[in-house]
């Protein structure tokens, strides 16, 4: 502990704390589990994804919010890992970046083994699920909802992992507000059209993201759609959604009456 002196004598006072160096732990001591437990700061909202006949399609918007502030407007919330897998993330952005680093290390390690085998979507999904579960066991969760999708050897993969380690595979997966708003719409669409093709699936995802934009106040109309199929992985360029008119005055009244 540092002592205050009225007349500091050079050489006698430890001005720069050489004797008691302030590490990060000293500055912010971890007193109890409460200190570890975090709140998300910069957050992304829903991720939605669906299997179609011959692959998987996933969509997210590109907004990362700081509370209610629309802070970062052009963040890609989906990442490729290896040759067959894409992960989309909602929740804390920095936690997803940290997880991305971990997974890229894993992919690099797998590449260096050089045995011709590559990490499959289900391997990455299971790895992610263990990482998330181990973090929750430490009381220091990665605050994300993750959607893992992929396509390998003629079969599609789609699964979800959340911050406590809950994980499952399904044909339709949504996170956040998407689970409330988009999921029922997508389940109905899949029921009406069980053999959806790529164009129909993309349109469905786009329509659902539009509906989310209308009601989820933490979403934006700048979106990306990614696809995993026999042609490999593709994450689209940013797409600006067409929405209803936003003019004021006479034009707005007209456009509203057309709805």
């Amino acid at each position, binding site marked *: 502990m540092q002592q205050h002196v009225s007349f500091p004598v050079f050489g006698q006072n430890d001005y720069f704390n050489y004797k008691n160096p302030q590490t990060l732990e000293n500055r912010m001591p971890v007193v109890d589990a409460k200190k570890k437990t975090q709140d998300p700061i910069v957050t992304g909202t829903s991720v939605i994804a669906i299997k179609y006949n011959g692959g998987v399609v996933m969509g997210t918007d590109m907004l990362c919010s700081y*509370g209610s502030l629309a802070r970062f407007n052009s963040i890609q919330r989906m990442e490729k890992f290896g040759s067959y897998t894409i992960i989309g993330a909602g929740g804390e952005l920095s936690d997803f970046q940290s997880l991305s680093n971990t997974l890229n290390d894993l992919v690099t390690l797998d590449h260096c083994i050089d045995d011709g085998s590559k990490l499959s979507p289900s391997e990455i999904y299971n790895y992610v699920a263990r990482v998330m579960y181990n973090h929750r066991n430490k009381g220091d969760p990665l605050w994300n909802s993750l959607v893992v999708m992929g396509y390998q050897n003629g079969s599609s993969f789609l699964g979800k992992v959340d911050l406590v380690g809950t994980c499952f595979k399904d044909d339709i997966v949504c996170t956040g507000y998407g689970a409330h708003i988009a999921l029922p719409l997508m389940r109905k669409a899949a029921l009406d059209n069980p053999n959806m093709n790529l164009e129909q699936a993309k349109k469905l995802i786009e329509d659902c993201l539009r509906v989310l934009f209308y009601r989820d106040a933490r979403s934006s109309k700048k979106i990306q759609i990614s696809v995993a199929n026999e042609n490999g992985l593709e994450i689209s360029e940013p797409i600006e959604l067409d929405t209803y008119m936003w003019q004021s005055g006479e034009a707005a009244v007209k456009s509203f009456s057309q709805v």
Partner: protein
Amino acid sequence: MDLKLSPFPTLEKQMPIEHGRFEAYVDNGGTVLAVGGPDYCVIAGDTRMSDGGYGIQTRKYTKIFQLTDKCVLATSGMQADTLALQKRLKTMLSHYQKEHGKPMSTPAIAQFLSNTLYYKRFFPYYTFNIVAGIDEKGEGCAWTYDAVGSHERVKYASQGSGNQLVIPLLDNQVAKFNQQIIAGGNVTSQQAVSFVKDAITSAGERDIYTGDYADIVVVDKDGVHWEKFELKLD
């Protein structure tokens, strides 16, 4: 005077908070039950996984896990913990098999699960288990547990969100409690499957966390037989 020179002032951080504090446990719901007979055991579990509230995360998550050719584990509660528990038991049983040259017996598995649960007494697996199958004598058997490993061998059992709805039905139809006209006694495997289907359908009628589909598993001397059974999707 208590003045301090510090290059790093400690500030209370003030951030916008929209989410609640981190909650390490989630109840994903679901009902599992088992009925043991003289030479068989019937186990059932629905396949709905809820999000802890009104939402359904998936309609096809199976709660029944095969441990050996004579033993299955049926679990409701938190899915992430269930998965961790299943992985742990699977590896430990594989070790046992390799060390002893035979699979672990069902009563031994039952005790082992209790030890495994109690090992995490102060940070428990939020899981509600039934171990069921046939024992060394070939008799049907079932054990029920609480989250920290208290257990009991029983003739029939149920666990999970629909437990309260299922148990009276089994008391009446399997144990035939307090019925003077009908003689008690053993039920056949087909009868047990029929009870179990009725029981889980009834649970799905009133319990919102139970539904979609059910796995009906029969364990007998020939092994483990799976059947899919439809429940209501609402």
